[in-house]
């Protein structure tokens, strides 16, 4: 395995009786990158990450973390990795500082505890008991705890699940900072925005299989819809005018909006010119960028939200 590869997964499978949670997946994670596993709950993200954390045994296949075999070198992997589990929880009656010291002790590590507290912006809360922290602060403490052994590799399992938008952005900022420090981050998420903002590469996992793996930009460009121009409160007459330019347009009778599928050949100004020259009225204009949500929809036929609610 190359030194540039932090994780190497080969044909990994995990079965629970009849259920195949992870179905023969293979991928690599490069050192220093943020790699996101994106998929709905139950897709196999957590099972995969827990196999890599040496918490579960795979049914078949191989995996190496930092060059160590997950089946043979579990202690070596544990010493060198940091883990933020889903909904980090610990001794309720230890303070923030004591919690960090506790886990540092478990790794026989001697980190600068105050520096870690500063890093996760918990200086004002350092003497607060864990049970009195909000969800967002608990997750930030969990990230500090994951860093006590100065790991080369971080596993963050749904790091911002259940947090309010402000707390979520705080966690994203932290993860981005770790990336800048050169840490390799493997994160699982079912928030496409999280993957899109943070990840260098995204693996989309569905029903235990990786159905796409690339940078967010490439995934969107390859599997996403085109960027959309939405003309609010216009008339059906706009559609033939736009189609004359050789691009797709669709009228929604309920909203009175026309959605135009943009491509590189025709600019927005040409569309507007075509409309104004024939006096087709319209309200406001809206530009909609294609996202990983669209990628997931195109690849699976269902949206991330629908998939979750069906589970």
């Amino acid at each position, binding site marked *: 395995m190359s030194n540039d590869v932090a994780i190497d997964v080969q044909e990994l499978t995990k079965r629970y009786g009849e259920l195949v949670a992870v179905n023969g997946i293979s991928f690599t994670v490069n050192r220093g990158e943020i790699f996101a596993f994106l998929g709905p709950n139950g897709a196999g993200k957590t099972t995969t990450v827990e196999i890599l954390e040496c918490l*579960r045994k795979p049914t078949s296949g191989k995996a190496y973390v930092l060059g160590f075999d997950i089946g043979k070198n579990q202690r070596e992997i*544990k010493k060198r990795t940091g*883990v933020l589990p889903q909904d*980090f929880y*610990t001794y*309720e009656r230890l303070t923030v500082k004591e919690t960090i010291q506790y886990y540092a002790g*478990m790794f026989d590590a001697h980190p600068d505890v105050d520096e870690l507290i500063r890093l996760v912006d918990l200086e004002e809360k350092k003497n607060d008991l864990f049970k009195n922290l909000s969800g967002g602060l608990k997750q930030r403490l969990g990230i500090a705890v994951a860093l006590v052994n100065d790991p080369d590799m971080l596993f963050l399992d749904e790091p911002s699940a259940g947090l309010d938008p402000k707390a979520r952005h705080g966690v994203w900022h932290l993860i981005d900072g770790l990336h800048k420090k050169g840490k390799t981050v493997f994160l699982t998420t079912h928030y496409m925005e999280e993957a899109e903002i943070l990840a260098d590469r995204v693996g989309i996992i569905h029903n235990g299989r990786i159905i796409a793996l690339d940078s967010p930009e490439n995934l969107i460009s390859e599997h996403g819809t085109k960027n959309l121009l939405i003309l609010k409160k216009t008339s059906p007459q706009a559609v033939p005018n736009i189609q004359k330019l050789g691009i797709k347009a669709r009228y929604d009778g309920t909203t009175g909006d026309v959605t135009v599928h943009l491509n590189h050949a025709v600019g927005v100004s040409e569309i507007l010119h075509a409309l104004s020259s024939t006096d087709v009225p319209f309200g406001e204009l809206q530009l909609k960028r294609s996202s990983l949500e669209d990628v997931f929809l195109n690849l699976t036929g269902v949206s991330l939200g629908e998939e979750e609610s069906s589970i």
Partner: protein
Amino acid sequence: MSHVAIDLKASLKSFWRNKSTIFWTLAFPTVLILLFGAIFSQSSMRYDLYVQNQDLTDGEPTYWSNNFITALNSTNAFNIQTVNATINATDYALTNRLSTLLIIPPGFNTSANTALYTHGATTANVTFVYDQSTSSALVVQSIVISIVDRLNFELSQGVDYLTVQDLTIAPQRFGYIDFFVPGVIGMTAMTTSIFTSVSISAQFKKNGIFHKLATTPLRRYEWILSRTIYNVLISYLGMAVMILMGIGIFGMKMTLDAVSLLMVAMASLMFTGLGMIIARFVKDPDGADAAANVITFPMMFLSGTFFQLSQMPQFLQTIARVLPLTYVSEGLRAAMIFGQTQQAIYNTALITVLGIASIVIGSLITKWEED
């Protein structure tokens, strides 16, 4: 080993900061001791006084012996129990574990009359047999003496016509509190260890703390060792409080030796293991408490914690013989109260073997993470 110390420190800190846990850990046995101690140890206002009147004429009490018994009765301090005049009173007191017995000897009436005629040149004596190790006996003795003094005053303005001869008996007598406290110490070691390990295991599983710990180099046996030491320390804390209360409030008589300390530690080990075995089969903290109750309550009441096994029906005694807490309670009593060292060592050895077995099984089946 440092991992064990770190986890133990965290557990003790958590215990210390959880005032309700401290309260309930110590309150239950404290309330039991106060309640049962008060019910069974506190002497009532009336004391049992066994009286053997050997001074009879044609089976009837003589004048002076009858007067003396009437004087005893008039105080309302005694429930007077009559002992057959023909038996050996001292043996009777020993056999029946009586703390006091008054013997009016044959010829008491004659002696009293002689004392009157001689103005105290001779005296009439009664014998007060008592167990000096019981506090109530001393109270009874002082009342009897005051009655004799009063009679002397009425008869002679203070010349001793009647005297009380003391005869002490010191059988192996123990009060209820002496019996009870070692039982509650054993019971507390059980409840503390089982409930702590069951509920901590269930909570750590539910909250994902096991999951997080499993990602660190902490080994499972290190965590189990830490929890076991924690349970031993908490059991010792309970033991200290109960002994102080037993001695301070109820005048309990006991010795604290290495065997009894070892017994409490081994009992904690055994019940920690048992708690872990229970925890393996429960899914959530609520179920864990219920399961722990199912195990601890029958043991609490059937293992001779509150009452002597011999007072229970035979079939319950048979059940008690297979319950480990029985051997803990009996071992602690043997060590702390009765001074039966061999019995104490035997029971402690038995509990040590069971303790090692249960902690090994508990450790093997405890899982931090699913397959």
